[in-house]
């Protein structure tokens, strides 16, 4: 049984803190993904698990063994690297059997295991090829075979698909998932690609600036991001986040054009607080579609700006400010009040058109603007202060 446990792992390079007090508790058999922007410390975290980097502080446990000071070879791990890292001076057989040969397994055992691994990743008949005679996908499969042949307790995968082309990447995702199902080992996977993280993992650990932001199943990270960073990082395109202020009757955006009614006291907010409101593009609807939303907000006036037809959906950039149609570039404040909406491809919406939109109240998030911590996910259950809000809306008109 190989649980992997990081306790207070910290790695400093001089004045730079690459990993800061990282705590991870990974169950046996779990497929966990460390995700974050480049330079966030996810690779360093993995290197401390692999033993390629000694942490400045904290402990790493694999199974029941404190491996913090053990060299990589004694940790019962195998690793697949971003640059594939096949030994160019060895053929496929020698590459795959490298670790077994170092451990003095018998020739028969090595042959059996290598063939078994080659079979799993469909490399049969290629064992005497040299790495430079193979395609990128084949090489990556050799690297995976080299890892699985040792039947390690823990697999570490450091952006293994990053150097493959898009089509192959999608294919290899399924290969990896199938392997995980078959092999019943713990997989720790590092990527900056949130699509990989979402599709493959049991849980995602979102890391930024060396710190763990959230560790949760993919959908939890998506639906209930722990903070503004996770909200922005998970999901493509990103969640809309708008600055605003709490009023007696709810929340209003900086330019006053977006109003959401609720009783702030129920969220522990009081008038004058300045939380950030977040809503994903697919949770913004034109007011014609308001019927299909169970908990719509009131209509919000907007102007369409740029349309991005993606084929399966259209991204619509909405301006919530009143600006002249001829304006080429938006000011910073106007950009902050922009709202991205996703509509179905059969929509007849056009550029520079006045539209009314509604938000799905059950998918609205509030974050503390200073700490970024989530305050609420979904406000459909909060009682609106009906009369007051109507009054104020009318007052604005």
């Amino acid at each position, binding site marked *: 049984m190989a649980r992997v446990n990081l306790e207070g792992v910290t790695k400093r390079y001089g004045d730079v803190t690459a990993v800061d007090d990282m705590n991870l508790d990974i169950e046996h058999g779990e497929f966990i993904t460390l995700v974050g922007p480049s330079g966030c410390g996810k690779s360093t975290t993995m290197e401390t698990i692999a033993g390629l980097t*000694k942490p400045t502080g904290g402990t790493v446990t694999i199974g029941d063994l404190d491996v913090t*000071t053990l*060299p990589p070879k*004694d940790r*019962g791990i195998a690793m697949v690297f971003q640059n594939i890292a096949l030994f160019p001076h060895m053929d496929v057989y020698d590459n795959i059997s490298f670790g077994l040969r*170092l*451990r*003095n*397994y018998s020739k028969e055992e090595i042959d059996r295991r290598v063939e078994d691994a080659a079979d799993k990743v469909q490399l049969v008949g290629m064992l005497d090829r040299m790495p430079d005679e193979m395609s990128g996908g084949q090489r990556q499969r050799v690297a995976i075979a080299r890892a699985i042949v040792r039947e390690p307790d823990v697999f570490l995968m450091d952006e293994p698909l990053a150097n493959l082309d898009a089509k192959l990447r999608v294919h290899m995702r399924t290969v990896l998932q199938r392997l995980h199902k078959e092999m019943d080992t713990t997989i720790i996977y590092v990527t900056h690609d949130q699509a990989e993280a979402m599709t493959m993992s049991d849980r995602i650990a979102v890391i930024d600036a060396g710190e763990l932001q959230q560790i949760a199943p993919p959908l939890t990270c998506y639906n209930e991001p722990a903070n503004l960073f996770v909200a922005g990082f998970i999901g493509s395109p990103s969640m809309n986040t708008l600055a605003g202020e709490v009023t007696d009757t709810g929340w209003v955006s900086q330019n006053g054009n977006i109003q959401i009614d609720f009783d702030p006291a129920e969220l522990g907010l009081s008038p004058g607080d300045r939380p950030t409101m977040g809503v994903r593009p697919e949770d913004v609807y034109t007011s014609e579609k308001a019927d299909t939303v169970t908990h719509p907000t009131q209509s919000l006036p907007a102007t369409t700006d740029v349309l991005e037809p993606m084929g399966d959906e259209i991204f619509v950039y909405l301006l919530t400010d009143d600006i002249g149609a001829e304006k080429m570039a938006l000011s910073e404040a106007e950009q902050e009040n922009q709202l991205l909406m996703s509509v179905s491809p059969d929509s007849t919406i056009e550029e520079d058109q006045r539209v009314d939109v509604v938000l799905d109240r059950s998918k609205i998030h509030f974050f503390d603007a200073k700490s970024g911590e989530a305050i609420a996910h979904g406000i459909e259950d909060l009682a609106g202060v009906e009369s007051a809000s109507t009054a104020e809306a009318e007052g604005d008109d």
Partner: protein
Amino acid sequence: MATEQSQRTGGGPRTGGGTLSGVTRWMENLSETGFAYLLLTPALLLLGTIALWPLLSTFRLSLFADSLTGGLGNFAGIQNYVAVLTGQRNALLPAPFLPSSLTVDALFGSALTVTLIFTVVSVFFETIIGFGQALVLNQDFRGRRWVRVAIIIPWAVPIVIQGMLFYLLFQPGIGLFIGREGNPTILQTLGPFSATPLANTVDATLIIIVADIWKTTAFMALLILAGLQSIDRTLYDVARVAGASKWQTFKRITFPLVLPSVLVAMLFRTIQAMRIYGVIETVAGCTTVPSLSCLVISSFNNTLVGTSATIAFITAGIIALVVSVYIFKYAREEMG
């Protein structure tokens, strides 16, 4: 290679025990800095005992007076340096350190000046010829490989054979350039050479310069060639499009871009030329051409240990001066 063995005998995964695996474990757990210094230890130990210690020890020896028994005399401070540099020691030395006058014979007969003359003249010609060879090798033509071999081969000739070759070439009656008595060659009637050039200080110096140019120009050529090949080829396309002639291209693109490589190559050659010893010993002997290194050895052989160390350290000092100019430049580039 303790680690290798421990792995070979170690059996399956995670087996331990025994001193070998203890050592392995200890090495694996060293910090990067500790590991770095551990691996450097053998190299630093060797350089420390066989290079650094002798260098410092030479300096120490230079502070003691000579002793007729070949041992060390009394502590003399910087007296050796004063005596050598002011010429007081010349009477004892096999050859003077500094020339007593500015005549040709005195200049070629004194260690410091003959070494400087040799260095400047040979490095100058090596640079020009080496540049020419580099330009040839930088072209694409059939047989380039063999031309390159031909140009490199003199560089690979052992110094003693280089010496023997020029000893024979300038041997009266045998050598091509020097005739037997009463039958002088053109070089002798028109040119500088006497009847027995190998025994004549000025002639022998010239021969040694030629020998050095013949052997080490290739080194210069290879460094300059590397500089030429690192020039971005697209610059030449730009120049061609702009309508530059070959000469203009050379003057405005090739030369300025290759100049740093040339200067580095000249520096290396200068440092090496200052140590000239072996060819002299083989071609003409240290009494005929008393270079600095020659003087170190011959005064040592005359039991002048302190003086010998002094001259060695002055030689080292002159080279250190040249090296430090380079290091200073290097350090500045590193920072910039």
